[in-house]
């Protein structure tokens, strides 16, 4: 046993080193585009391609950001994206926690039917309902408005969030509400002051996943804001910018940075909830 321990330990260390080398190479490939983008956003138009691989700009051209922010409208797009995302997250938490609560804790006529339909929405591809959603938004008079985009994003496909809440509320002890109700609190009061605070971790996961999905969404904001450029989101604005301005590469890089930085920063702070939420999907 003792003799075997020597070579085993050595080969284990060799494996570790090999693993780190492979991972470092992979990570370099994964991070390089972001580093290149960050440096391109600060380069001059001439420098951006002439030195290709060089990541350090000769001088910091902050005017790229000024152009993207002002002339190209990415300041407005950032505001639109932020409003739509915050609105979507708030609406999704509101409606999925309410329905998850009653689905998880009470038996009532139609419960199985409601759950069946909600689970069914899992399998509907986005493209399939696209034209009717545009038609519906137009009929409501909300085409080319931030509210129209927010409602569409908050309204379609949140089965996972509802089921997360349902599962959580289901396993809470029964006695929790009873005392409060004997004290004369209303049902909604109990939900707001006792149940929702208890579900904090679920709310955090739902908020993070919804935030990322809403911020990164493209198809719905694209088709719902065709007629009104000032209501575009960052992703949609990027497409328009590329379409009309194929020469301003540093400006585009700055615009891409404005779009990506907030969501990447957000992710760094809430990594844990995101990873848990995604990992939960495969474990269950």
């Amino acid at each position: 046993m003792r003799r075997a321990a020597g070579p085993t330990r050595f080969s284990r260390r060799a494996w570790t080193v090999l693993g780190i080398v492979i991972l470092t190479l992979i990570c370099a490939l994964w991070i390089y585009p972001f580093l290149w983008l960050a440096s391109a956003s600060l380069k001059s138009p001439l420098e951006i391609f002439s030195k290709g691989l060089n990541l350090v700009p000769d001088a910091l051209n902050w005017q790229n950001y000024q152009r993207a922010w002002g002339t190209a409208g990415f300041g407005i797009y950032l505001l639109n994206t932020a409003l739509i995302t915050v609105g979507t997250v708030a609406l999704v938490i509101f409606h999925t926690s309410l329905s998850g609560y009653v689905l998880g804790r009470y038996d009532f006529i139609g419960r199985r039917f409601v759950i069946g339909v909600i689970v069914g929405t899992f399998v509907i591809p986005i493209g399939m309902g696209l034209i009717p959603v545009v038609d519906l938004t137009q009929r409501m008079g909300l085409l080319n408005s931030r509210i129209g985009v927010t409602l569409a994003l908050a309204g379609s496909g949140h089965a996972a969030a509802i089921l997360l809440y349902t599962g959580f509320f289901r396993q809470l002890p029964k006695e929790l509400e009873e005392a409060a109700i004997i004290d004369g609190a209303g049902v909604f009061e109990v939900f707001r002051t006792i149940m929702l605070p208890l579900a904090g971790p679920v709310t955090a996961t739902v908020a993070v996943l919804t935030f990322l999905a809403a911020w990164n969404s493209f198809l719905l904001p694209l088709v719902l804001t065709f007629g009104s450029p000032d209501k575009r989101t960052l992703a949609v604005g990027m497409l328009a910018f590329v379409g009309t301005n194929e020469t301003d590469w540093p400006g585009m890089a700055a615009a891409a940075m404005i779009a990506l930085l907030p969501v990447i920063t957000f992710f760094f702070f809430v990594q844990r909830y995101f990873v848990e939420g995604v990992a939960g999907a495969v474990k269950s």
Partner: protein
Amino acid sequence: MRRFSEAPAARPLGKRLWGDRWIYLFLLPTTTFVAAYSVWPVLAGIYFSMLDWSGFEASGQFVGFENYRELWNDNLYRNALKNTFVFMVLAVPLRVALALFVALILNSALPFSRVFRTAIFLPVVSTAAILGVVMRFILDPTRGPVNLVLLQTGLIDQPVNFLGTTGLALYTAIVIWVWKWLGITLIYWMAALQTIPQDLYEAARIDGAGAWARFRDITFPLLMPFTIIITLITLVEATNVFDLLLTLTNGGPFYSSEVIDIFVYRQAFAANVPRLGYASAAALSFGVCIIGLALLNMIVRRGLRGRRSE
């Protein structure tokens, strides 16, 4: 108010519904959303698919299954179907296998594994539509860094137009899609790997099993059920490539990377004379395939769960 444990249905139906009215009030926001943005769109989509409708007038002319018959003979629709199929068949196994490879390395208790995981996760949290544009810079045939490196190291003599060559654009898109989403699949695999008891490896090590033997005899068989689930999840996700492909290639050059979603978008929104009915028929006929796939997913999951609880 009633819970699961109490015997239901002792009271008459009307009284029960009235007594539970607050429950339906709690459900109202969700049911309204689901009805408006999921159920109605599917029903309306079926109706729309039987219309000849440009969208300029309030409603179209009913033409029955004419749109479907036309789709059947439309070379561009078949081309988009073929591209979607090629995309799934190549990109899904690549993403699943590469993510497993990385997960296995990360799982062997390496230092900095959190840093590595976060790095691979960066593209996952980044907007797909923006990454499409960024990749157009990076792969630019004359001045992009990828071509510069390949030229400088002597791997190629001529710059390669990765996104502008008919035979290449779809495959480039597949590589970029795998790059973009690898981090999610990595998390799936790491969650799956954590379900394997560590003492199995210890026992095998004492028996003198090498790394490959341990993978073949322990890891691989125990991961089998997860392999099926992860592959099916990834297959369904692979139908959702619109954002990346529209900004990356816009389906081009010459429709060589046009998938179904881009075909639908082009017919419904990007054409001079939109064909909403025709686009609906294309979306619906493809959607039926996806729903079939998702149902298969559910059946397999249920089957696996049943086998495990036996």
